[in-house]
C-alpha cells in the first residue's frame, strides 16, 4: 500500500539567484537526477510551509541533477526560499504529460517564453539543444518585464553556442536599462517581426495568460502556424498533482493529469476556464 502524498527528500546542490525574487534550485535524489520527460512538473515543499507546483526546468537528458525555478511570493515559496545549499527539499513527482518530441524531430522549432514561463520552455528547449542534430533551425524568443526580471542570464551564451540557433531577448517597453543591447517590446510584438513561417515548424509557448493569448494569435494569423503545431503548457492552480483534488480541471480535463502540455488545437476545444 503506497501513500501517494508522501514526498521524497531531495538535496539542494546549487542555488542560482536569477533575479531579486527568483531562484533556480538544482537538486539530486540519492546523488543523481530523476527520470522525467520535458514538460512534466513536480510538487516541491519545505515541510511546514506547504507544497507548491513547479515545472521541471532542466533537460531530462542531463541525468546528474534536476532543476526548477520559482518566484518568491507566498508561504510555500518563502519556505523554499529560506533553504540553503545542502538542505533537503521535499519533492513529489514527476507528474503530468509531456512534450511529444517525436512530432518535433526534423522540424524548425520556435520557443517563446515570457517571464517565469520560460522555466518549462527551458526544459524542452535544452532537451532539443542536447540533441541538436535531430532538429531544424531553432529560434528562442524570451521576454520579461524588465532587464532585472530576466531569468537564466548566465546561460544565454551557452544557448547561443549551438549551431543554427538564434536567441532573441526582449524586455517590455520601459523595462530596459541604458546598457541594454537586446530588443524592447512585448513578446507578441517582437514575435511578429521575426521571419518565421508555419511550414515544417513547431512553436512552443509559455508565459502569462495574456501573452499566450496574443502570441497564439500572432503565430496562427500572421505566420500561418497550424493550431496543432503550437504547443503550450497551462499553469493552473494545483494541489495534489494526482487528479484527485479537483482544483485544476478545465472542462473534462484535469490539467495535472491530462496536461499541463496542450496544443493550441486542444486548448480551443476547452471552455474558457483557465
Amino acid at each position, binding site marked *: 500500500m503506497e501513500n501517494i502524498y508522501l514526498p521524497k527528500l531531495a538535496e539542494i546542490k546549487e542555488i542560482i539567484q536569477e533575479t531579486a525574487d527568483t531562484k533556480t534550485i538544482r537538486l539530486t535524489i540519492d546523488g543523481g537526477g530523476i527520470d522525467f520527460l520535458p514538460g512534466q512538473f513536480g510538487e516541491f515543499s519545505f515541510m511546514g510551509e506547504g507544497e507548491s507546483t513547479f515545472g521541471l526546468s532542466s533537460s531530462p537528458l542531463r541525468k546528474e541533477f534536476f532543476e526548477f525555478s520559482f518566484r518568491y511570493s507566498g*508561504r510555500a515559496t518563502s519556505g523554499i526560499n529560506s533553504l540553503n545549499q545542502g538542505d533537503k527539499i521535499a519533492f513529489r513527482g514527476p507528474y503530468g504529460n509531456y512534450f511529444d518530441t517525436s512530432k518535433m524531430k526534423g522540424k524548425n522549432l520556435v520557443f517563446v517564453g515570457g517571464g517565469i514561463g520560460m522555466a518549462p520552455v527551458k526544459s524542452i528547449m535544452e532537451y532539443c539543444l542536447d540533441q541538436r542534430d535531430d532538429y531544424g533551425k531553432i529560434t528562442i524568443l524570451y521576454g520579461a518585464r524588465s532587464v532585472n526580471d530576466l531569468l537564466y542570464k548566465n546561460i544565454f551564451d551557452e544557448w547561443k553556442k549551438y549551431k543554427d540557433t538564434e536567441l532573441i531577448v526582449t524586455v517590455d517597453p520601459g523595462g530596459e536599462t541604458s546598457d541594454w543591447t537586446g530588443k524592447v517590446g512585448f513578446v507578441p510584438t517582437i514575435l511578429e517581426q521575426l521571419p518565421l513561417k508555419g511550414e515544417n515548424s513547431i512553436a512552443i509557448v509559455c508565459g502569462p495568460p495574456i501573452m499566450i493569448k496574443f502570441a497564439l494569435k500572432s503565430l496562427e494569423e500572421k505566420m500561418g502556424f497550424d493550431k496543432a503545431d503550437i504547443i503550450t503548457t497551462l499553469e493552473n492552480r494545483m494541489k495534489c498533482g494526482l487528479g484527485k483534488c479537483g482544483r485544476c480541471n478545465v472542462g473534462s480535463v484535469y490539467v495535472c493529469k491530462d496536461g499541463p502540455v496542450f496544443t493550441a488545437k486542444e486548448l480551443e476545444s476547452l471552455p474558457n476556464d483557465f
Partner: protein
Amino acid sequence: MANTKTDEKLQKIAKDLLESGEVSLIIGYTKGSNSQRMRPLFVTRTEDADKLSFSPNAVQDLAVFLKKAEVKKFGKIGIVVKGCDEKAVNALIQEYQISRDNIKIIGVECNGVIRQNIADKGETNVSESTVYDKCLICEEHIPVLYDFLVESEEPKLVLSGKVKPYSEIARLESMSSEEKNAFWANEFDKCIKCYACRQACPLCYCSRCIVEKNTPQWIDTNSEETGNAQWNLIRAYHLSGRCIGCGECERACPVNIPLMLINEKMAIDVYNMFGYKSGLDINAKPVFGVFSENDFNDFIK
C-alpha cells in the same frame, strides 16, 4: 398563491423605482422552492417586479448581496429589508462599504420570521415559539431607516415572556471556565470550516479573509479542535460591536453551531461597556473607530 396587499405595495414601489430609473436593480424576495420558503430575487426589468413578495418565511438578510462585486456593478440598487436586515445596511453605510445615495431602502414591517427548519416541517404559525430568538428581542419591527415603508398585515407578535430568548447566554455566563470551555469545545468540534457563517454575514465583506491569509498562517487550516476554535474566536471578535444580530450565520451553519449565542453576548457586552448598538444610526462612528478617555479600564493593571 395570490398576491397579498404587502406584495402589491412592494411590486408597485419596485416598478416605480425601475421605471423612473432611480435604481437599476431591486433585490427582494420571491416565492421559493416550497410553499414555506422564500428566496432572493433580483429584478432589473419592470415586468419581473410582479414576482416580488414578502411573508414570515422571508428569512434571508438580503443586505448580504450588497457586498458582492457582481451586485455592486449595478450601481444604484433598491433593497427590500426587514428591520434587522436594515441595520446591516446602516452598518455597511457607516463603514463606507456602500453609499447612502446609491441605495433605496424599501423597508417592510416585520412581526417575526418563522425558523426555517420548522417551517420546512410545515409550521405556518407565527408565534413566540416558532420565530427566531432575534425576533423576540427585536426593537425594530419597523426599520429605523427607510425610503419606502410597507406596513405589515400580520398581527403583532405576542410575547408572553414564557420563551426566554438567548437564555443559554445567562446559563453559560454562570459556568466555570472549564465548563464553558467544554461547552464550546463540543460545539466547535462539529465545525467543518465551510465558512458559511462568514459568507452569509452581510458585514463579513473583507476581500481577503484572515483565514485566507497565510503569510503568516494566523488561523490553523485544520477543522479539528485547534483550527476550529481559532476560527470561531476570530470570527466572533471581528464581528464584536459590529454584528447587527440578523442571525444569518447561525441559519447558514450546516452543523448547527449556536453562533448567535456568541454574537448576541458580544453585542450585549459591547453595549454595557461602551453604550453602543450596531446599525442604528448611519451617522454614528463604529464603536472601534472611536474611544473615550473614560472607557472601561478595570482589567488593566
